[in-house]
């Protein structure tokens, strides 16, 4: 058990990811304000992306932009570029989702005059 906890403490990035993920999830599920729900969702999405980025790190490696002219390219000298590509895609997907969700929020506000989930549900009845 002690080893487990020690293992987690050696990964501050991972701790940050878990904190942001759980915080965002909690807010998304329980908060009453629609916009705050979206902020929670935003935290969840960015935290997953954060986790993906940390898998790309290598000790002592530099950014994945190759220096032409050198001799053979050493893969260990550059961080892993594949997770970066996946995260780029995921970020764009995230902002697209945000656009649609804000359109829905704006529509709900125009119709019901409130961003509070309870009030909106009350007006639905």
């Amino acid at each position: 058990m002690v080893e487990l906890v020690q293992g987690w403490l050696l990964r501050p990035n991972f701790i940050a990811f878990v904190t942001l993920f759980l915080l965002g999830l909690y807010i998304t599920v329980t908060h009453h304000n629609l916009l705050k729900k979206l902020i929670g969702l935003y935290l969840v999405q960015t935290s997953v992306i954060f986790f993906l980025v940390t898998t790309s790190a290598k000790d002592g490696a530099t950014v994945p932009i190759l220096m032409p002219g050198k001799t053979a390219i050493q893969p260990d000298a550059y961080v892993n570029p594949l997770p970066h590509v996946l995260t780029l895609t995921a970020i764009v997907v995230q902002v697209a989702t945000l656009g649609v969700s804000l359109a829905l929020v704006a529509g709900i506000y125009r119709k019901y005059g409130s961003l509070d989930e309870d009030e909106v549900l009350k007006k639905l009845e």
Partner: protein
Amino acid sequence: MTYSFELPLLILLILTAGGAIFVKDLLSSVLILGSYSFFLALVWAWLGAVDVAFVEAVVGAGLATVFFVITLFGIDPRDTLIRRTPPPIAAVVSLLLLGLLLLYAANDLAAFGDSASPASTHVSPFYLENSLADTRTPNVVTAILMDYRALDTLMETVVIFTAGLACWLLLRRDAK
């Protein structure tokens, strides 16, 4: 690997995330979220993911904030609610279980920065070794994005396109 640079950034990250959620004024909360994105971009730049940091700074801190602010314009930007009902027990319990699952699953992940991890040794060295010869593109991220995994990029542009259409469908009722 030392964390001296990163720890303050991570703490700021969590603080801004908390701020974005607990501030009552929605406009401020959105702006704090923008700064959260900015700190996130810094962390990623520190991790060597410059392209991702750039996109996060422009898309996350820029475009997302623009969308938020434009939506909030014309909405009374106040989170009026002080919590009325306690959060359901089921939500809290399942969240705790989920956190445990996350930590449990992390135990067998390769150590942070391990250059012998499966992620760093299986497919990705191919890109680093060949992208210059294959595509004459020194930025490996661009080479993968636009060539090796071009279909993902095409589809992700379709996601944005779909979002544009979706906003049109949802909001421009009477226009045109």
